[in-house]
C-alpha cells in the first residue's frame, strides 16, 4: 500500500487513488495516416520496466484530479509526483 501525496490534497492512502497506466503517451492527431502497427503501438503497447516507471494516477475518492508519478517498480519508492503538463523529471534506472 503506497502512501501518495496528491498535489492538491496532500498525503493520502493508496486506496483513494486509481492508477491509469503509463504516462506521457500522446494521442496521435493524424491517426488515419498511421499503419496498423503504429496505431497498435499507441493503443496497446506499454513499457513494463524493472526500474523507474512514469504513470498516471487519479485521486478518485478525493479531488478527482489526475497527476503523474515516477515510481520505482521494485522498491515502490515514489521518486516524484508532478501535475499534468509539467515536465517529466528524469531518473536513472
Amino acid at each position, binding site marked *: *500500500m*503506497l*502512501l501518495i501525496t496528491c498535489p492538491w490534497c496532500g498525503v493520502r*492512502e493508496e486506496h483513494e487513488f*486509481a492508477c*491509469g497506466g503509463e504516462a506521457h503517451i500522446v*494521442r496521435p492527431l493524424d*491517426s*488515419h495516416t*498511421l499503419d*496498423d502497427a503504429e*496505431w*497498435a503501438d*499507441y*493503443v*496497446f503497447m506499454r513499457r513494463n520496466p524493472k526500474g523507474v516507471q512514469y504513470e*498516471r494516477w*487519479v485521486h*478518485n475518492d478525493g479531488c*478527482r*484530479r*489526475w497527476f503523474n508519478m515516477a515510481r520505482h517498480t*521494485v*522498491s*515502490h519508492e515514489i521518486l516524484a509526483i508532478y501535475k*499534468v*503538463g509539467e515536465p517529466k523529471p528524469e531518473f536513472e534506472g
Partner: protein
Amino acid sequence: MSGRLKSGGAIDRDEVLRFHFDDREYFGHPGDTLASALLANGVRLMGRSFKYHRPRGLLAAGAEEPNALVRLRSGRAAEPNLRATMVELYDGLVAESQNRWPTLRFDVGEVNSLFAPLFPAGFYYKTFMWPASAWKHYEWAIRRFAGLGRAPEPGDPDVYEHRHAHCDVLVIGGGPAGLAAARRATRAGARVILVDEGAAFGGSLRGNGQAIDDAPGLDWVADVVADIEAAADAVALPRTTAIGYHDHNYVTLLERVGDHLPRPESGQPRRRLWKVRARRVVLATGAIERPMVLADNDRPGVMLASAVQSYLNRQAVKVGERVAITTNNDSAYDVAVQLKAAGVAVPALIDLREEVAPALAERLAAQGIELLLARAVVQVHGKYGVKGVDVMRLAPDGERVSGEVRRLDCDALAMSGGWNPTVHLFSQSGGRLAFDETLGAFLPGTGGQPAAVVGAAAGRFDLAACLADGDAAGLAALEAAGITRKGRMPQGPAAEASTAGTPPRNLWQVPTGPGKAATAKRFVDLQNDVTASDLALAAREGYRSIEHVKRYTTTGMGTDQGKTSNVNALGIVAGTLGQEISAVGTTTFRPPYTPATFGAIAGRHTGLNLDPIRRTPMQAWHEAHGAVFEPVGQWLRPRYYPRAGEDMAAAVNREVKATRTSLGLLDATTLGKIDIQGQDAAEFLNRIYTNGWKRLGVGRCRYGLMLHEDGMVFDDGVTARLGENHFHMTTTSGNAGAVLSWLESWLQTEWPELRVYCNSVTEQSAVAGVSGPNARLLMESLGGDLDFSPEAFPFMTWQDGTLAGLPARVFRVSFTGELSYEINVAASLGTALWETLMRAGAAWDITPFGTEAMHVLRAEVGFIIVGQETDGTVTPIDLGLEAMVSGAKDFIGKRSLARADTARGNRRQLVGLLPEDPYLVVPEGAQIVERAGMAPPVPMIGHVTSSYFSPNLGQAFAMALVEGGGARHGETVQVCWDGRSAPAKLCPPKFLDPDGSRARA
C-alpha cells in the same frame, strides 16, 4: 510422563480452569496455553500427520508449531487449524483434534503409513495426473483424508474490526531488544506502538530467568510496559502479531482481542486488524529454533529444546521424567541445567560437535549430566511417545555414523538444530537476506524500508547485545522521525555479557543407523510430511529451483509456512545438488506471517456493510407494492411486481403486455446522469461519441455510443442539449462512475485546452418513465403548461414545464420502442410524481414494470444493453450500428475500427435468434455451433447474449453474437448448454416494429 511441577512458572495455581479436548475433561490454570495444559495432564498425542497419519505431539511452544492444530468451539463459531501453542486456556474451552477419523488414537488414515512407499515426493502430481479418467473415482476417497481441518458452518456470530493508526515508531516483538527500543522512543515522547504475539511481554526473558540492571529480567519488563502504558502517545499491544509488512512502512497487525476469553467482552471484537503506517519500524522478532532431521524425529515427545524450556519456566510443566537432549549449539546447555534443577532426569546431552568450551562442559559435569560429544541420535523409539533413543559416533565429515549403538532410556527428546532469525517481515518489506555460514541461517541483509532489525532477529543472541541493539535502534528511530530528545539521556539497560561460545555444527540431516533404522523416516517438514529422502528425490529428479522443490514436495507450505523446516530443507537440497546454500537461495516470504481468518480480514465489511446500497426515492412505494428487487451495480431496482399467485414469468408477461398495449411505468432514476458544461462541450462530445454532436439543436436529444480507443463499445445513452454550451448526458446505470472518470481523464490529461466541466447529477433527480400507446393521453391528463402534441413535442426532444403542479423536465425518448416520456423531477418529489402518475394512469390501467420487462421490451425492438450484448470485444459495426459511426470526424476508437482484425467480415455479429421450439427460452451465455452431431472438437461460432419469452410475439426469442452472422439471416444453428442443445434460426435483431414508428407516434 509429563506433568506439572509443584512450584514455579507464571501460572495461577489457585484458580482451576476446566476444558475439553476430544470429549475428555481436563484441568489447567490461568497462564496455561492449551498445549501446556494438555502436557500437564499427560496428553502427548495431539494430532495426526497430513499424509501418513502418524501420531504427532507438540514440537514447539510458539507460533511455529506445525503439529498440534486443533479445532476450537463448535458450529458457526468453530475455527479450525489453531495452534494449541497459541491458544490461551480459558474456563470451558472446547477443542478437538484434526486430521483423524474416527478418533485420534484409532485413525483409519494410518493405513497410509503402510503404503508409505507409494507417497513419494510429487505424489499428487504423479498420481492424479494419470490416468485422468480415474480421478473421478478416487477423488471422493481422497477428499476425506486431504486438507487440514474443516471449514466452520457459515454465519460467524463474532464481530471483527479494523483500526487505522499512525505512529513514529512501531516496535514488533516485545522481547529484550524490542522493549529496549520501545523504552527509548517512549521516553523521548515519540508515538510508539509496541506489539508482541504472546499473552505477555518479555519474549525470551519469560522463559530463562536472566537479569537486567542487576534485577530479575521480568521486573525490568514490567517497568518498561508500565512506562509505555503511562505515556500519552504510546500503546503496548499483547496478543498481537504483525502479519504483513507492505510498501511504505504499512504494517498489518492482528490483535486477538477476545480469543483468550470464553467469549469476547460485550462490545468487543474477537479480533482486530490494525493497519499501521509507521515512520520507522523496529523488527525485534527474535529467532526460531530448528529441529534436527533425524530418524523418527516426529514421535510425540520429540520437541525443540526451547519449547521444553518454555513449558518448564512459563507453565511449570515438565515434558517428561527423563529428557535426553541433542544439540549442535550452546543454547541447549541451559535447558539441561534447568531441567535438572527442576528434578527432571537428563540421561545425556548429545552434542554433534567434536568439542565445546570447557565452561559449558563443566556446567553439565557439576549437575552430573553426561556429555556425549561427536555423537548423534540415530533413532527414536516409541510410536505414541518416546521410549528411548539410539546414539552413535558421528564421523567428522557428518556423512556417516559408526561404532556401537548405545540406547538411552528416556521419555522425551529435546533437540536444537540451531537458530533461524525470524526474518519473515524483513523479507516481506523488500529486504534481501544473506546466508551466514557460521550460524547456518539467513540474516537480514540490505534494502527494505525505513526499519531496523535488532537482537536475535539480526542473529545476535546474547542478552547484553540485544539490549544494546534495541536501545540504539530506539535512538536511531527518534532521529529519523525528527524527534528531539528532552532532557538528559538516561542510560540504556545493561546485562552481563555471556562468554564466547563454540560455533554450531550445521548438519542438515543426521545419518541413519544400521539395519532397519536405515530406512526410518527423517522428517523435515512435519506439517506436510516431507522427509529428507523426498527432498533428495526431488533434486535427483531434476528440480533445481528451490521454489520448484517447494511446490513439488510441498515442503514449507501449509499453515506454518515452513517456519521450522525451510532452512533444513534448503540445506538438504543444496547438499544433494552439491551447491552452497547461498547459491540455492530461499523461497519467498509472503504475508501473512501467521494465518489470519477471513473474519479479521473482512472486519465490519460484511453483509449490508460490504458495499453501499443505492435506493431511489420511490423505494418505499416499490416495497409496499411487493416488488422483487435485483442489484444493478450498487443500485437496487425493482425486477418485477408479482401479483398474488403470479410467478416471475407471469408477472413479466403481464407487465410487457400492458406496456405494449396500454401504459407502463418504470422507475428510471438509476440512469447515470452527467451534467456537461463549457464553451467546448459540443467539441468534447464530438470526440467522445462515435456520431456528430455539433449541429444538434438546443432542445434536442441524440443517442450516442462511446468506444474505448481499441474500438470496442464502452457505453451508450441519450444526451440532450440543454443550451449552447450545456449538455445532459445519460449513461448505463451500472457504468455512470466509470464514464465520468473516463471523461475526466481525457479532459485533464489529453485535452486540458478544452473548457469543459463534468459533474455527476444522477442523484439530483428522480425519473419516471411513462411508456405505451396511451402515454400521451396520460401526460395530457396531468395538467400543466406543456403541449404534448406530436408537433409541439416531437420524438427525441425535451422540455421544461410543470406537470400536476410539479416542476419537471420531460425527455421524449424511448427505450421500450413505445411512445415514451421520461419525467425528471427533484429527487425529493419522486414519490409525489410516482403516486400522481399511478393515480392518473388508472384510467388506462397503468402498470408498473421492472427491469425484467424493460429488458424484454427493448429486446423486442432490438435495442442493445451495454454489458449484455457487448463484453468489451464488440464494435459498433458488430452490432449493426454502422450508421452511428461518423466518417467526417475523428473520435476515440475510430482508427481501431479500420484495423485488420476489427474490419474483417467474419467477426461475431449481432443477430436475432428464434428457437425452433417457440416456447424454449435458451439460457443466456449458451454456446452456438453450426449444427447438431458434429464430431469434437466442435468450433464455437457464437453465444447467446439475451433471451426471453415475448408475450407480444407469442414465442421465445433471443439475441446472439455469431461469426459472420449479419450475412446469415435465415440459416439454422445449434444452441448448446449443460449437455443439451436445440436448433434456432438466425434473423435480423429486430422482432417488432422494425421501422420504429411506435416510438415516433
